[in-house]
């Protein structure tokens, strides 16, 4: 492409920002006995290197599952094993069984950061660049600006574990959008086998590919495609889970670790519906456990059904991306045992639609970063968060001129406002409302950040700030969901709250 040097500059800048942020503290630094995610990653290298496969997911004297036991699918374990081999080569003390618990040193930190950077460089960043280059109907300059904004998204820079699964999922999206269906589905299967949360994205993939098969005709090419895809999925799953198929107990134990339904509706303070509602209505205490599971399942399904059905009937890459956002949001808002970091699973598809609705996407991405503030403050990442958020905001504002493009059509709310105008003819000020809401939300975020940093919460409400944060996020994400409709759609956009 022309102006390749600008794209190279953008990639180099993205890498530089990632590395400089990683020079800061990591999660759980210097906090025995449990430390944090960093120690979890190191521990998995220790376990996978020193123990045979059969013992990885089981509790034993050598493998205490209470201390950061493996709770991700096998591909994570294999990746940790690969890193462990490199660690063994450099310094065996880093992964010595038992004695390396809580190991912290400058050299080890560099090693862990380097593995993350290399994974990003090899998988995530090429996918982003390729995605931007394949965007249609926009100039080269806009493509490069798009890449810059995606690479500067703070959420993925600040969370310090690797994003292998997001990179793989992105390759999956690319493959499927560019009609390399088999490769795309392979990449996505690998992503699911890396982190089970990728299942948030699985329904859109399924519906899109199913829709493609239907389009090609159920008898003939469509059927052949369907068989090939099914074969690919089965083969990739088998390959990853092969060592665990030897005994039934093995596979079941892994599943139990992956889906801990015993842990309850939500943990900590997370910006989804259950947590926000529970401030007024203690759902956890009112409903029995199995009812909680059923309720959350039903609500999740209800909220994502319309988009998925539409995608199956009219498969298109653009619709696919929007459905990804929609489904991931549904899962995040209503699902069981959602972690704060799962917002990243929503942010990734939103990054993909950045060029189509820049204003709303930027708003969402800013809020999603803010939603992780309690987590980031715990890890001493205030300065990098503020800096990267400002950089992201400036990049988006200058690249897309977001404040100029807030007409109804550009916000994709035309059909909604048209139908409202049937009852209220004066309803022409929707864009203005949205602009003002945006400014209010930004000011609120800044104020909440300042308050969280400088003041101590009143004693009766120790989690006041985190809860206020999650309410704010909830309102913005719900507003976003309402704007998911395609302007060519005849019916009203689904308005869920």
């Amino acid at each position: 492409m022309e102006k390749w040097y600008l794209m190279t500059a953008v990639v180099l800048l993205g890498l530089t920002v990632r590395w400089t942020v990683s020079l800061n503290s990591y999660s759980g630094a210097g906090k025995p006995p449990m430390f944090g995610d960093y120690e979890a990653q190191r521990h998995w290298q220790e376990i996978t290197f020193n123990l045979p496969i059969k013992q990885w997911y089981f509790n034993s004297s050598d493998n205490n599952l209470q201390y950061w036991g493996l709770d991700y699918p096998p591909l994570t374990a294999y990746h940790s094993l690969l890193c462990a081999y490199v660690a063994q080569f450099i310094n065996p003390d880093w992964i010595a069984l038992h004695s390396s618990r809580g190991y912290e040193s400058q050299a080890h930190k560099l090693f862990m950061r380097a593995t993350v950077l290399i994974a990003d460089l090899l998988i995530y960043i090429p996918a982003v660049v390729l995605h931007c280059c394949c965007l249609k109907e926009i100039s080269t300059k806009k493509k490069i600006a798009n890449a810059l904004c995606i690479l500067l998204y703070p959420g993925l820079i600040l969370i310090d574990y690797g994003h292998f699964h997001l990179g793989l999922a992105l390759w999956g999206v690319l493959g499927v959008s560019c009609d390399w269906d088999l490769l795309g589905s392979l990449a996505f299967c690998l992503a699911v086998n890396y982190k089970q949360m990728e299942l948030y994205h699985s329904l859109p993939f399924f519906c899109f590919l199913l829709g493609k098969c239907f389009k090609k005709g159920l008898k003939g090419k469509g059927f052949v495609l369907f068989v090939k895809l099914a074969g690919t999925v089965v083969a990739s799953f088998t390959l990853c889970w092969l060592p665990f198929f030897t005994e039934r107990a093995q596979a079941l134990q892994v599943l139990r670790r992956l889906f801990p339904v015993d842990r309850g509706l939500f943990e900590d303070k997370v910006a989804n519906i259950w947590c926000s509602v529970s401030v007024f209505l203690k759902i956890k205490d009112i409903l029995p456990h199995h009812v909680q599971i059923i309720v959350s399942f039903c609500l999740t399904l209800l909220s994502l059904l319309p988009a998925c059905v539409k995608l199956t009937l009219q498969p298109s890459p653009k619709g696919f991306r929007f459905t990804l956002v929609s489904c991931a949001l549904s899962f995040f808002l209503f699902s069981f045992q959602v972690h704060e970091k799962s917002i990243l699973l929503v942010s990734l598809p939103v990054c993909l639609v950045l060029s189509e609705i820049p204003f709303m996407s930027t708003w969402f991405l800013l809020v999603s970063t803010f939603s992780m503030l309690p987590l980031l403050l715990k890890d001493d990442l205030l300065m990098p968060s503020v800096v990267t958020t400002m950089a992201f905001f400036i990049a988006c504002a200058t690249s897309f001129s977001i404040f100029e493009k807030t007409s109804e059509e550009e916000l994709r709310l035309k059909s909604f406002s048209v139908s409202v105008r049937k009852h209220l003819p004066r309803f022409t000020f929707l864009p203005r409302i949205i602009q003002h809401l945006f400014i209010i939300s930004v000011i609120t975020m800044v104020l909440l950040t300042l308050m969280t940093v400088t003041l101590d919460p009143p004693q009766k409400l120790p989690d006041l700030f985190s809860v206020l944060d999650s309410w704010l996020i909830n309102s913005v994400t719900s507003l976003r969901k309402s704007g998911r409709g395609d302007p060519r759609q005849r019916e009203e956009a689904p308005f869920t709250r």
Partner: protein
Amino acid sequence: MAALSVMTGGGSWFLALALGVTLLKCLLIPTYHSTDFEVHRNWLAITHSLPISQWYYEATSEWTLDYPPFFAWFEYALSHVAKYFDQEMLNVHNLNYSSSRTLLFQRFSVIFTDALFVYAVHECCKCVDGKKACKELTEKPKFILSVLLLWNFGLLIVDHIHFQYNGFLFGLMLLSIARLFQKRHMEGAFLFAVLLHFKHIYLYVAPAYGIYLLRSYCFTANKPDGSIRWNSFSFVRLISLGLTVFLVSALSLGPFLALNQLPQVFSRLFPFKRGLCHAYWAPNFWAVYNALDKVLSVIGPRGFLRCLILCALSSFMFGWHVHEKAILLAILPMSLLSVGKAGDASIFLILSTTGHYSLFPLLFTAPELPIKILLMLLFTIYSISSLKTLFRKEKPLFNWMETFYLLGLGPLEVFCEFVFPFTSWKLKYPFIPLLLTSVYCAVGITYAWFKLYVSVFTDPPVGKTKKQ
């Protein structure tokens, strides 16, 4: 909302570039810093806690005050802000004190004072005319110049990692150059005089200023063929220039003259014995003498800029006790010339690439290794590609020899940082990477110096070809 849209609209690319690099500088806060950090902390302590009469005598720390008085006053002003961050850093006896608040304050002070540099770059961009009507923003000379200056690799790593205050000093210099381009000679002279009393290293380029001001300001008119009209000499202008310099110097050195401390101040500023004095200044005069006769017919601000860069480079090449950071004194002004002509662009690229690479040994710690490589690649790839695109209609910027030389920097870096530490030579000859780096870069810098010299002598006198 309208205000926000104006801000983020068309003309704000400069603001975006400036803010972007400022945010990057904030991210560099936790990186390694050199002993210069302690130097400046010590000067904060000296100027804050001691009376003026003690400033140039204080020697508790080995890092005594060896910059001219204006810089001391600058540190004094900073110290009044510093006391709100951490009072302890202002204690002269707290050697090597570097609490997190001290670090934050010092780093922020460098970032903040860079505002002057940003303003100077903005003024310099006004002097660069967009002869070629480019609609594409990224191909405008103003845009390229802004990136080359604001995102200059050398300045980023020397100021914001290694720790120094070069940003605002170069801002003063670039501002004075811009004023000379804009024919505001008195302001330019004043700014340069002020700069000299901040950091005396800029004496290297003083001859260029002196000759240009004499030639273009004191002689008010030229003959039609461009040479001097001797009878247009204006005594008034000469006196006013002299008076400006005198007043600035009086403001700076006056207090110390009154305290009879001038010899002590000079011994701190110029720390060498009489014998070496000749060796220090002689090459500079020699370089100036050589250029003198040609310079008198090379009129116009561009000629002045070439002269300035030549002075800076010559003193870098032949001066005594020159630090590698002094290469920035040549690279930054050269950026202004690089967006004007293809020949200058070629010289600039060779000079800046080798000059920046020669700064690598300043950052020798492992965590900073990816930063310096990534930023170097960023700046080098951008500068070469953007200038090539700007001058794509003229002949190629590099011949095959120059291309090979520049590409050779890659393998050199790989050898010095990745291969050599694992060989057996590391213990016996640990100086080899430094030696190789210095020699390899010296070749490039000498070559650039030579090419620049040739271009000064072979270019047609500017006065004949176009109006200034």
